[in-house]
């Protein structure tokens, strides 16, 4: 018997679901004031009578105080009676096989009533007012359901039974590659979603030729997964011939020779005082914290899944990165999350969207909700993040998720033993995420949605929380010898990596499945979430098994780490794979790539050709936003904006720009205080709403020692020079940490490169140049990289109807890098994201009571600027809001930065600083405004003494010159330049002398004072800017107050 339970808001209670649908329909121009009624419901299959289902509905599924229910056998007309003039019923259900945690919980809870349900599915239903067919279909696909995971059914649900899977009949599949020619190999790689190059396919063919047999399908899949970009980072860790403004260079392993090398040099220089513990080897970087603990940090991306299904993609993105610290050493306890997103501006007109692209609003809301629901349920505070907007993220948004963990010092290493049992812990295996590893290494096309539906997963945070709970107990009882997470590539990746040096035999039939019907290959490569693998000494298995059972966590022996040096997979007593570990891990042919970087000659501010941000945006006119630029044309410099006529207006525009504006709407949806260690929250100040520079938390509740988390990123600078973009990102991340009180001698950083298709030498060149900056700046600052990750091929290629196929060859790709190229027609060519390097920083403070926040504290205190201002308006937000191009991009003098950070820290540590804010987007004017309105005070500032260097200089091969604009805009530069390594500090008059002496070796100047009148006043030689702070605050809060 199949029953349906519909749950409506009770009479007089708000229908929140309906409101959301109507609002979204209006935003997408589908219908104004659409009449909607929403309900949620359950389909319950089992031998149940009406009274039982009604009891379940009343006591379990619905909240009778605020909801009412309709219970009937599925198909009963009662369920689709239209309440009034509304004319369509639309049912939205997860597609079969898509994770439905609520249904799972409902089944278990129904069993607790003593009833038995065979199957449960959840759905949502909507009655909507009459719409023309094409609008109705758009409503279904753009508002109500996401095709990637859900199906929308217009009209009654036609089900009589819920499908619960069909049995799988074993059949060994071999792939006849020995006989294939090149064309056939390439086709196999493409059609089979292996995403391997021809050279790689040929290598596999040669290997099996030697063995005298064809591979099985699962062998081929295993090789493809192990050799995927996602899992092996073959491009960046490969051979690269680089030619750039800094000369020619050959790399055997680019990452090793730049980023890892920096860390090595720093560790060597530190000698006995080295505080790095394990870097670039485990699932996360490990550094020393205190006498008892180490901390670990990892940041990952989940871009392509988030493009297709923002909620599920971001949900499993955060879920996945949490498992990295859990799988580091013998397992760390996650203590905080970070999230950084890159989106297209939300004002894009729905009609202008290329096919296959979700509207940015939907992406933004889905991604935020995905991170929220997973992080909050895990009980891990999400404490730091950022959002960047650029039209080039339209088809390919970026979702970076990070997690910090705490681990006892003596649990920081793994000790896998030969003949350990391979034990799968946590969630069951289903068809979720098949081909995620290879897919994330491919480019997105408008066909991706249909092609890669399987790559989208939905998480179940509680399964992971349960797993975490038992894992930490098992760790402390010594019940396993090694642990790793199942991420991209599933068991294939986890077992393959753990057993690399020993060998492994896996009995695939034993793997617990969500439903019947999976082939042995699907079991092996499934990326079902919430699973980890531990290696267990046989004598410990019973205790581990009992512990897991006591908390309802599934633990299953699925194999053994046999000392054979081979990976052997068994299904139905037959060998389905038998691969040499060394072929798998060392057999990949080296990738050799060419990389080129060319700097265009610098152009003065306002007179250059538009940077790509403006050009690209021209393809999709953005109404009402600051990205509004005449379509396809170079922005025309507006002479008026070069004259300091109305800097107050400019300031207001920068504060209201998407990158700078308040992200409170996002932040408050995250639990940022769970675990009880919150010291500096993301929002600070008199009304708890000012933008803090970094988060501080106390991970050990009976200790005063703190962790500081911050980040730095500026894709706009990459349009000028990726070297200075990378240098600026590092400087920003570190100065954010220092601004709240972190000791710069104990800051570690992480790199996450998200780039376009590096098959193009220019694109790879821009990445190599950024990596060179990472090396140089990290070494100079003494700030080691401890972990990193790259995501390449972040391009979206809308396909012309009928011609499309998933292709990785670059016949018509956009060229990126600092080249003067024409942006190709986005409907024919690929749209590359801008080079997007995220630097995440983790700092430490001895005593959290010494931390400072950025809000102004008391009238009468003095304001000091620290650091040197240069005429660096290239890529600035001043340029952005005034529609200017050209100019000098901010550089970093890393040696000076090191001195400045040390001096700032000394001053803060000595208690001489009441408030401190870093100067970044929008420069001094924005920092001053933010500090003043966060403190609900005012500030009077004179620019006369600001340390100013009219002609910018910098280390490295960056372009010089551009002095023409200097004479034009000294005031603008002083107000809005985004020169690095600068702080604005509030100091009590009594501490002025001590502060000045602490900063003696660093450019600094007293530039004003804190006042109580709620105004920001800045004067140069003449009055430049005067504004009421409430108005500035309103401009800053308004854009994303959703």
């Amino acid at each position, binding site marked *: 018997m199949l029953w349906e339970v519909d749950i409506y808001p009770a009479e007089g209670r708000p229908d929140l679901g309906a409101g959301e649908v109507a609002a979204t329909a209006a935003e997408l121009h589908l219908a104004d004031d659409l009449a909607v009624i929403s309900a949620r419901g359950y389909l319950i299959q089992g031998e149940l009578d009406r009274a039982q289902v009604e009891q379940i509905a009343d006591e379990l599924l619905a*909240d009778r105080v605020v909801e009412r229910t309709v219970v009937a056998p599925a198909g009963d007309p009662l369920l689709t009676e239209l309440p009034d003039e509304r004319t369509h019923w639309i049912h939205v259900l997860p597609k079969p096989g898509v994770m439905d945690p609520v249904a799972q919980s409902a089944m278990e809870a129904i069993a607790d009533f003593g009833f038995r349900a065979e199957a449960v599915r959840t759905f949502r239903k909507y009655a909507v007012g009459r719409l023309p067919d094409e609008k109705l279909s758009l409503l279904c696909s753009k508002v109500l359901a996401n095709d990637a995971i859900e199906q929308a059914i217009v009209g009654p649900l036609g089900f009589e039974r819920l499908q619960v899977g069909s049995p799988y009949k074993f059949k060994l599949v071999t792939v006849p590659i020995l006989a294939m020619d090149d064309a056939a190999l390439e086709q196999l790689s493409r059609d089979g979603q292996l995403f391997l190059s021809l050279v790689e396919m040929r290598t596999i063919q040669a290997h099996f030729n030697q063995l005298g047999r064809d591979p099985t399908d699962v062998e081929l899949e295993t090789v493809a997964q192990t050799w995927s970009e996602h899992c092996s980072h073959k491009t960046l860790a490969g051979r690269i011939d680089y030619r750039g403004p800094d000369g020619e260079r050959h790399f055997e392993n680019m990452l090793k020779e730049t980023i890892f090398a920096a860390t090595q040099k720093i560790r060597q220089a530190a000698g006995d005082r080295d505080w790095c513990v394990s870097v670039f080897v485990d699932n996360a970087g490990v550094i020393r914290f205190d006498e008892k603990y180490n901390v670990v940090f990892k940041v990952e991306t989940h871009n392509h899944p988030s493009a297709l299904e923002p909620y599920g993609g971001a949900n499993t993105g955060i879920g996945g990165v949490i498992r990295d610290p859990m799988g580091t050493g013998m397992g760390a306890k996650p203590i905080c999350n970070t999230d950084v997103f890159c989106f297209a501006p939300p004002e894009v007109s729905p009609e202008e969207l290329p096919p296959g692209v979700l509207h940015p609003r939907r992406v933004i809301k889905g991604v935020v909700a995905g991170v929220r629901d997973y992080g*909050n349920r895990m009980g891990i505070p999400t404490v730091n993040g950022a959002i960047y907007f650029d039209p080039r993220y339209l088809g390919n948004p970026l979702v970076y998720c990070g997690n910090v963990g705490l681990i006892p010092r003596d649990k920081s290493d793994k000790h896998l033993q030969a003949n350990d049992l391979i034990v799968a812990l946590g969630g069951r295996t289903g068809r979720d995420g098949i081909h995620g590893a290879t897919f994330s290494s491919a480019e997105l096309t408008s066909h991706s949605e249909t092609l890669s539906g399987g790559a989208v997963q939905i998480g179940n945070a509680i399964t992971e929380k349960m797993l975490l709970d038992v894992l930490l107990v098992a760790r402390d009882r010594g019940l396993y010898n090694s642990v790793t997470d199942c991420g991209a590539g599933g068991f294939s990746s986890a077992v393959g990596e753990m057993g690399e040096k020993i060998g492994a035999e896996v009995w695939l039939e034993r793997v617990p499945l969500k439903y019947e019907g999976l082939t042995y290959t699907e079991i092996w490569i499934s990326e079902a979430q919430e699973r980890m693998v531990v290696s267990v000494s046989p004598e410990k298995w019973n205790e581990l098994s009992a512990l897991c059972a*006591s908390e309802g966590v599934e633990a299953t022996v699925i194999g053994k780490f046999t000392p054979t040096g081979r990976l052997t997979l068994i299904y139905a007593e037959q060998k389905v794979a038998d691969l040499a570990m060394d072929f798998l891990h060392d057999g990949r042919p080296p990738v050799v790539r060419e990389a080129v970087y060319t700097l265009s000659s610098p152009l003065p501010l306002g007179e250059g050709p538009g940077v790509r941000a403006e050009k690209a945006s021209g393809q999709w006119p953005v109404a009402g936003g600051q990205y509004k630029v005449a379509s396809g044309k170079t922005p025309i410099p507006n002479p008026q904006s070069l004259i300091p006529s109305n800097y107050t207006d400019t300031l207001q525009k920068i504060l209201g720009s998407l990158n700078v504006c308040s992200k409170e709407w996002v932040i408050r949806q995250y639990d940022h205080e769970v675990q009880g*260690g919150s010291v500096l929250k993301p929002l600070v100040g008199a009304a708890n709403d000012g933008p803090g520079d970094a988060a501080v938390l106390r991970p050990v509740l009976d200790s005063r020692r703190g962790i500081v988390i911050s980040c730095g990123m500026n894709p706009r600078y990459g349009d000028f020079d990726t070297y200075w973009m990378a240098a600026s990102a590092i400087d920003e991340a570190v100065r954010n940490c220092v601004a709240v009180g972190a000791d710069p001698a104990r800051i570690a950083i992480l790199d996450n490169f998200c780039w376009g298709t590096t098959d193009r030498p220019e694109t790879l060149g821009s990445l190599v140049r950024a990596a060179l900056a990472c090396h140089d700046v990290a070494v100079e600052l003494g700030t080691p990289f401890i972990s990193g990750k790259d995501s390449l091929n972040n391009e979206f290629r809308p396909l012309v109807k009928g011609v499309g196929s998933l292709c990785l060859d670059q016949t018509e790709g956009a060229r990126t890098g600092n080249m003067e190229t024409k942006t190709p027609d986005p409907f024919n060519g690929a749209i590359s994201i801008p080079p997007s390097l995220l630097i995440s920083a983790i700092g430490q403070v001895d005593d959290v009571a010494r931390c400072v926040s950025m809000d102004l504290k008391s009238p009468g205190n003095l304001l000091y600027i620290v650091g040197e201002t240069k005429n660096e308006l290239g890529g600035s937000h001043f340029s952005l809001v005034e529609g200017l191009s050209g100019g000098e991009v901010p550089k970093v003098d890393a040696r000076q930065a090191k001195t400045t950070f040390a001096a700032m820290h000394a001053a803060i540590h000595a208690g001489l600083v009441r408030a401190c804010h870093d100067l970044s987007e929008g420069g001094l004017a924005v920092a001053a405004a933010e500090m003043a309105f966060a403190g609900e005070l005012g500030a009077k500032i004179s620019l006369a003494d600001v340390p100013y260097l009219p002609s910018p200089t910098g280390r490295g091969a960056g372009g010089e010159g551009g002095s023409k604009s200097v004479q034009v805009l000294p005031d603008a530069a002083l107000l809005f330049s985004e020169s690095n390594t600068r702080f604005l500090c509030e100091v009590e008059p009594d501490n002025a002398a001590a502060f000045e002496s602490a900063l003696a070796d660093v450019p600094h100047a007293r530039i004003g004072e804190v006042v109580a009148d709620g105004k920001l006043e800045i004067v140069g030689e003449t009055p430049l800017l005067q504004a009421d702070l409430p108005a500035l605050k309103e401009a800053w809060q308004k854009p994303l107050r959703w």
Partner: protein
Amino acid sequence: MRSHAEHGNEFIAPRDRSRGALFSIPTPDPRTLLMTTPSVLILRAPGTNCDAETAFAFEQVGAKTETLHVNRLLESPELFERFQILCIPGGFSYGDDLGAGRILGSQIQHHLSDQLVRFKTEGKLILGICNGFQVLLKSSVLLEKIGADTPPATLTWNDSGRYYDGWVRLEASGSKSVFLAGIERMYLPVAHAEGKFVARDERTLQDLDAAGQLPLRYVAADNPNGSMDEVAGVCDSTGRVLGLMPHPERHIDPTQHPRWTRGEAGPEGDGLQMFRNAVEYFA
């Protein structure tokens, strides 16, 4: 998990706070009146996530704590006898998949209600924070549900329709709740999606208020979820069971105050007194 005190099955009686009329407890065993350190059971379930800091808060004021999985109590309900205080902390028990606190509430109702009724009538204390409040309400431990009637009240979706983390000013009224004794005002964070208090009807709301069972309210301007009558916390008819949406365990240290850098925090967090009240009740 923390080790448990050596109390075994002994019973510790509460100090009678001269509100005997409200109490219907058996005469305590005089031997146990000498005990001064109550043992707190922190009950966790899949998805509970505030257990560690809640235990820490109780320990800061001298309590002994033990954190137990609900499965242990389902297996051995007699475990309740070892404790004087039961706390169901915050989190997302069973993912809140069928509504906040619903599944754990249903489990308690089906399998542990005898133990909890006994726990109450023996004069012991029960505290539900955030998800724990939702569990207590949905299991009818906090407000009795009669037969097949609609329950007297619920906690449902915030008016905003989404999760919200922020700080609120609270006012405590009356002296009914043991936990809130002597407290007039608190500044605490909330962090929830389903925290809107809704009574079955106006009459129920008035009755609860008249009985002093609505002892904690948001300052109207800070009501984060649209709760009726600004209700932030509810106690049972004895005053020994309290559920509240705000998180007292997240404000026990001055540096947890969002404006401690502005000198606005006191020597200790406002929430600590609630835990101290519970412990001192047995002093």
